[in-house]
């Protein structure tokens, strides 16, 4: 299977602190890879590095064929990140936020209504982000990722803030990802839930991956 992410001795600095201190990682197409590790281990920074949101200090990083040391923008068009924040605007409705993201990513917004239905957000589609509950916001964040139809889906603590229904929706989306041509890289503390979805798991600790680079199990 082709490599979607390839990191070698990747180092990222947050200020002068090495948040990633030499990470090696291979992620293959169609995998659902779980990053496990304690708080402050560097999981979020690793996801943000792959998303091209933080610069690589040293080492090698290729995402979807793009060398991140040369070009952090081109890979972004084909990936999506669901982070701790929703990346949405308080004064836009659910539908407007999704339409904006879809159009900004080069689409025509034709998948917005289907995404709203898939996430169970139909009843709040015309409410502004500022009026949504925490769980509804998390679903919307997932929606902003899906409307971009990404090849690589990055999920940072995706279970946080979701109720049972929300988690069921999340699990349906992640489980269906390989069949939809997506690769998933997720960081989670909810290990039991995440392990049920993952096809492989690696541990991140003190800014390093603690298992050798490997392929899918």
């Amino acid at each position, binding site marked *: 299977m082709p490599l979607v992410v390839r990191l070698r001795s990747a180092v990222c600095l947050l200020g002068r602190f090495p948040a990633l201190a030499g990470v090696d990682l291979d992620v293959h197409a169609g995998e659902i890879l779980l990053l496990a590790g304690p708080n402050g281990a560097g999981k979020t920074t690793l996801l943000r590095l792959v998303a091209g949101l933080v610069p690589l200090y040293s080492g090698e990083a290729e995402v979807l064929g793009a060398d991140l040391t040369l070009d952090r923008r081109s890979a972004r068009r084909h*990936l999506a990140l669901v*982070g701790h*924040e929703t990346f*949405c605007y308080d004064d836009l409705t659910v539908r407007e936020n999704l339409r*904006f993201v879809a159009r900004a990513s080069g689409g025509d917004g034709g998948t917005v209504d289907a995404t709203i239905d898939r996430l169970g957000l139909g009843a709040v589609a015309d409410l502004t982000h500022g009026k949504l509950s925490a769980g509804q916001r998390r679903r919307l964040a997932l929606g902003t990722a899906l409307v971009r139809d990404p090849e690589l889906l990055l999920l940072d603590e995706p279970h946080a803030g979701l109720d049972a229904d929300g988690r069921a929706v999340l699990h349906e989306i992640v489980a269906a990802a390989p069949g939809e041509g997506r690769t998933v890289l997720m960081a989670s503390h909810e290990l039991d839930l995440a392990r049920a979805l993952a096809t492989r798991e690696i541990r991140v600790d003190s800014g390093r991956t603690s298992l050798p680079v490997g392929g899918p199990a």
Partner: protein
Amino acid sequence: MSVWREAGLVAGKDLRIESRSRVAVSQILPFGLIVILLFAFALDPDRGFLARVAPGLFWIAVLLASLLAIGRAFQTEEQHNARDGLRLAGLDGAAIFLGKAAAIALELLVLEAILGTGVVLLYNVSVHGIGVLLLTALAATIGLAATGTLYGVLAAGIRLRETLLPLLLLPVLAPVMLGATRAFEDGLEGAPGDAWPWVALLGIFAVLYTAIGVLAFGPLWEES
């Protein structure tokens, strides 16, 4: 997607947010009107004096209100880290710059129309040379919006943004203040011919900072 289409998307988004949040109408516009009113109270109640200094007072009020509009344009990107969402979308930095600057410019033009009406009524100003006044306002507004958007991204993500932005921006905008005030004075005094060099200065300033913004905004946005 072309740069212009991306810019239109960003401008439309910013204007929709402003129209719904009503910050421009409920805070920025009243702020500008209060500044004009305070000048009227603080300076000589002789309306002849106020009419003479009206161009300078008008542009000071616009400048102060524009600081709020520029700060607001970047504040919306800070909430819920929407800035990362824009970066992930892969939009061209030049398009984000042009879209944000266009939205700010439109807000400022509306603000100037209302403040200008207030100045005419409060300061008893006779309006002459409307063509020069409109061209001056257009060129000065584009310069203000382009410079403000460029310096806004410099200050974005910094904890002390609210105090840093005026410190960075006001000295750079001194030529706009000077040119717009002089052009307005000449226009209102019925000597529009004397205003054209100032309008040209404002035009050059606007083109220069728009060009710098198109080139520099993307890398600054990436690292902010």
